């Protein structure tokens, strides 16, 4: 098993004719992802890497049965692209786009909740279930099918941690980047609920960072509901307060959202927190 995506996922790429969209369509196909359609208004009839392009998501879904969409369109068009995917009945949306206004996200998330559509992101590197499917921009070669579920708020830091998890021989069941923005679709807890029921997943790696209180809420959830071993890492111990550290969501404000608070929250519920990225794999290896 795995969560959210597997070999049966039929993937649609919104913004497929753009620079990033076409490049990653190629990469996803090489990985073995079942990319069935692309959408760029006005480009119907053409194809990218053999994938047919449609004018609208509705048409693409009707013709190909796509159930999962990945969005590469620029920020100012991204919000409508998410609505369009939700409207067309897509079940899982992965938003790679970065820089979407927060209040727009607030609205579209409410809309998707009513539709029953799941959203990963925005500002997400995507999701991968190794050996099955990849919907995102994650480098496929560092992953290996295995037993560790990975949930992360960042991109390349995830790759750093995953490469060690692969190297110690554990491998991953599903790895997803939930996005670096303050308002996002699936959060740590939503993903943990899915991993809890996934037989392939024997342990979890959570990669958090400064800003907000998601990690604290997740620690409380783990204590009550999650029964597989969990190891965490938190980036930003040395981040100065009041400064946005790259990600829109990574900011220590009013003395809350600090790395120290998050580390304490995890450790207080028995979740060990690695002090450097390499340690995550070592701690998992001890537990599994």
């Amino acid at each position, binding site marked *: 098993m795995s969560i959210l995506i597997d070999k049966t996922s039929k993937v649609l790429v919104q913004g497929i004719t753009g620079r990033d969209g076409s490049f990653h369509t190629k990469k996803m196909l090489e990985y073995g992802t079942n990319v069935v359609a692309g959408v760029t208004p006005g480009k119907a009839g053409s194809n990218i890497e053999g994938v047919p392009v449609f004018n609208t998501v509705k048409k693409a879904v009707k013709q190909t049965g796509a159930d999962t969409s990945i969005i590469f369109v620029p920020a100012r068009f991204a919000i409508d692209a998410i609505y369009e995917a939700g409207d067309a009945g897509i079940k899982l949306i992965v938003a790679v786009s970065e820089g979407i206004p927060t209040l727009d996200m607030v609205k579209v998330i*409410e809309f998707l909740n009513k539709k029953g559509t799941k959203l990963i992101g925005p500002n997400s590197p995507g999701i991968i279930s190794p050996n099955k499917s990849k919907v995102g*921009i994650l*480098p496929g070669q560092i992953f290996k099918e295995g037993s560790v579920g990975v949930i992360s708020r960042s*991109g390349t830091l995830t790759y750093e941690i995953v490469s060690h998890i692969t190297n110690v021989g554990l491998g991953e069941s599903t790895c997803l980047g939930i996005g670096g923005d303050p308002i996002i679709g699936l959060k740590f807890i939503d993903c943990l609920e899915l991993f809890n029921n996934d037989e392939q997943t024997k342990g979890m790696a959570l990669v958090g*960072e400064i800003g907000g209180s998601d990690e604290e809420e997740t620690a409380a959830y783990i204590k009550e509901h999650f029964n597989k071993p969990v190891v965490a890492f938190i980036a930003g*111990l040395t981040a100065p307060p009041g400064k946005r*550290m790259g990600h*829109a969501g990574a900011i220590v404000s009013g003395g809350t959202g600090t790395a120290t608070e998050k580390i304490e929250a995890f450790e207080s519920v028995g979740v060990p927190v690695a002090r*450097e990225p*390499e340690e995550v794999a070592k701690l998992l290896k001890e537990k599994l």
Partner: protein
Amino acid sequence: MKIHEYQAKEIFKKFGISVPDGKVATTPEEAERIARELGGSLVIKAQVHVGGRGKAGGVKLVDSPEEAKEAASKILGMHIKGLTVKKLLVTKSVDINDEAYIGFIVDRRTKKPLVMVSAAGGIDIEEVARETPSAIHKFAIDPFYGFLPHQAMELAFNLYDDIKLVKKAADVILKLYRVFISIDASLAEINPFVVTPKGETWAVDAKINIDDNALSRHPDIEAMRDVTDTEMKELDAKSKGLSYIKLDGNIGCVVNGAGLAMATMDLIKKYGGEPANFLDIGGSSNPEKVVNALGILISDKNVKSIFFNIFGGITRCDDVANGIIEALSKLEMNLPIVIRLTGTNEKEAKEILGHTEFITASSMADGARKSIEIAGT
């Protein structure tokens, strides 16, 4: 983006929220002139982008133009939490009978706009939130229906017994919501919301932060940006597609990805070094970005060594390697560079860098240790 109190108050006025009369001064003489113009008791307030101005001595009550001048000369140039005071708000003082708190934020937990009010307003609101959270009344707003008058009334009943004041406060809460939504704020706050002995109400302080992702649709707000010299450098980096924050250490960091950039800083610190900056070159491999990144680091005279930590995914390691070589041919520099490149096209990158004098690192930890050793203490 943060804006100053006086700017937030200008926005409040446009939306019909009453604020005491006031004007901005940048010299003691100007403060004196404004004080004469406004008359009566006044407050001189430092305009800097941090909280706790009052506790730091940046707010003074005065009773004459002469006193205003004296207070202004003390506050101007003052350092508050590392920021230099360059502007003052000279504003009319109001008599205080009661102080309440009204605020809006985008709540990450409920994923909705959240309104908060408390009868215990004033400078200790954060302590109130910590010690007696029940004294803060919250309501998550439906993003489609918006915030409705009866909901504002329900909240206002927590603030006052007098129905006249309840209605006045509800009106201000609704207006502040309109401010919040109209300008894509991430925070809009009145603290304190003051009731005078005569029953007048005033927004005595105003705080607004704007969502950076939405600034492109608010050019009027963008024009309010007031930056320090350090922030200037950060903005300049941003215009080149780099995310840069200056710190006080001596090890310059160039990393792809924000999370990895933070983790790199943390690791340097853990091993006893001091990072000079946060710098995320983002996902593309454009050699020009590497040139710009190195340019920024060189301009920081504290930097003694530079650590490249690149995890190639989308970013190709050979592109970064070429960028470094291109940068060095364009820039005059002799700082030692430690390079850790792994992932996509790692082998090609190593061949490119094989004949150079760069110090290579086998892992992130190895690179951190080597760059600390070279930088010395």
